[in-house]
């Protein structure tokens, strides 16, 4: 029992440390780089008195350390501050965008795993076959693709030439009810497929190599010697072990995906968090930026926790350790 408590405490401590680190790095970068947050709220043409009053209102006249302390204190209470550019709470600005990013990244991730695992299994069960060669070449090329290039070409051919799918945004205005869901799904296809194409390679290649190793292990040889059908050996015995590195990859990718979606969101004018970060940077909207990075850090932490849970399901050794 104490072991479980200690384990949980350590994990929680680590999670808090990760969030704190991301918050602090963002805070320091924002304050120490040339862009002056005071410029974003106060115009240099104001009278000095009015400028000082405005800065005081946002707490920007205080020393750096005091601002940092205050920010952390507010953050612990769940207060992310007020947007410089729009004068509304940061949480409101972020909550408009978060659902879209989550929808995009989770759909892309689920589809990648759903396609990647069977492909990896097929490649590994017939090494050096046609499909294996194909996935290897495709995997290397996929990993090397530039996300906006993929997006631009999908958009060009499927959106502009064939008129099959909408070319941007997340939904069309004036559509309600069941048609709205269909419309959202249609808008989701192109950004989702571009993310998938870029990611699929690393999943297939990772799963292929770990599964080939697992199939060579003694327990698989034994299972086959017992007369177990090959399909069962692969899917029940080998795959369960081979999925561990793939699970790590999902955990690693999720954080990267949520932040890295900024390029895809730019190509398709998708109103997600990544695009929001870019817009906040150009407007020097520091509170929104900080809030967005807190959100990304929390996403990474949650992804890591989910990975740990999945590890526990897949590998009994992790549960007792």
């Amino acid at each position, binding site marked *: 029992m104490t072991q479980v408590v200690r384990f949980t405490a350590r994990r929680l401590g680590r999670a808090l440390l990760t969030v704190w*680190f991301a918050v602090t790095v963002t805070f320091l970068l*924002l304050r120490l780089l040339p862009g002056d947050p005071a410029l974003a709220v106060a115009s240099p043409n104001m009278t000095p008195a009015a400028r000082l009053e405005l800065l005081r209102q946002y707490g920007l006249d205080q020393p750096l350390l005091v601002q940092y302390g205050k920010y952390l204190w507010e953050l612990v209470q769940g207060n992310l501050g007020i947007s410089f550019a729009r004068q509304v709470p940061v949480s409101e600005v972020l909550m408009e965008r978060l659902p879209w990013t989550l929808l995009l990244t989770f759909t892309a991730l689920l589809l990648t795993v759903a396609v990647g695992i069977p492909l990896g299994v097929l490649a590994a069960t017939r090494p050096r076959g046609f499909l294996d060669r194909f996935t290897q070449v495709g995997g*290397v090329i996929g990993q090397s693709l*530039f996300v906006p290039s993929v997006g631009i070409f999908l958009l*060009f051919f499927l959106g502009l030439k064939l008129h099959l799918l909408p070319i941007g945004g997340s939904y069309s205005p004036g559509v309600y009810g069941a048609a709205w869901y269909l419309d959202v799904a249609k808008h989701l296809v192109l950004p989702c497929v571009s993310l998938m194409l870029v990611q699929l390679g690393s999943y297939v290649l990772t799963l292929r190599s770990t599964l080939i190793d697992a199939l060579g292990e003694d327990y698989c040889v034994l299972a086959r010697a017992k007369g177990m059908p090959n399909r069962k050996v692969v899917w029940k015995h080998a795959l369960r072990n081979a999925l561990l590195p793939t699970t790590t990859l999902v955990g690693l990718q999720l954080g990267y995906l949520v*932040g890295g979606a900024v390029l895809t969101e*730019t190509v398709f004018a998708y109103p997600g968090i990544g695009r929001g970060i870019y817009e906040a940077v150009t407007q020097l909207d520091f509170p929104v930026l900080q809030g967005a990075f807190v959100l990304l*850090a929390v996403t990474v932490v949650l992804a890591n926790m989910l990975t740990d849970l999945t590890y526990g399901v897949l590998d009994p050794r992790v549960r007792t350790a």
Partner: protein
Amino acid sequence: MTTTVAGLDSVTNDQVTAARATWSAFRRNPLGMISVGILVLLVVVAICAPLIATYPSGYGDQVLQAPSGAHWFGTDNLGRDIFAEVVWGARLSIVIAALSSALAIAIGVVVAVLGAYFPKVDTIVGTVVDLCLSLPVLPLMILVAALAGPSLVTLVLVIAFFSWPEVTRVVRSQALSVVRLPYMDAAKLTGGSSVWIIRKHLLPAVAPVIVVSVVLTASRAVLSAAGLAFLGLGDPTSWSWGRILYEAQQSGAMQSAWWTTLFPSLAMLFLVVSATLISIAYNDARNPRARED
């Protein structure tokens, strides 16, 4: 001649034969050799850019022309030759990749090796690297590039600063397994200084990992630089592959003229794929088990 010197000689001879065996195995891999060829070609194009094409600037009257004999890759919305843009873009992309990966490797290797050699430093290094790897890298790069103002120096520093933790992670895990080997204890018993042991015994053992890491970091740097340029955060005074895409998107040229986006994308793909294949071929060539079949 003392016996120690003779011993040292035989060690160096062994290393030469190992390098030769790797090279001869590498040469027999067609994909690896083609990739080296493509990479060399791109570097030559980058160096000789002024000889190949005139620097694309100003306006031309032939706007959005499809590829032809006069303009191999067509022209963009301002009538500039896209072939010239891609050629000059190779220059900036390769310079950024080379400089930022050199810097990232230097920082990453020093931190990794010091961490692996001094156990007290290692707990800090391990934690810092883990924390850095959990940072959202691309958004942070955007933030720094936008606030510090877009320029070549900013791009190189930003990419290097966010790339070294990955280098450290890879090199450190190899270095940690090397420092436990008996020959490292033997080196310590000879009374050599830590600097000498790290330089002569630890670094050569992790060198192959560093080689692979150089190639992968550089190709990732190309994509990062292109990503920033695509968002309009690249160096606005010189051509890069990302900037060609950025301008095609901003002007709307990409909606009608496929050639404005295809050729810079292909250039990038060729560079990154050949770098990846070289690292794979090098790993295979170094591994005697893979060499046999």
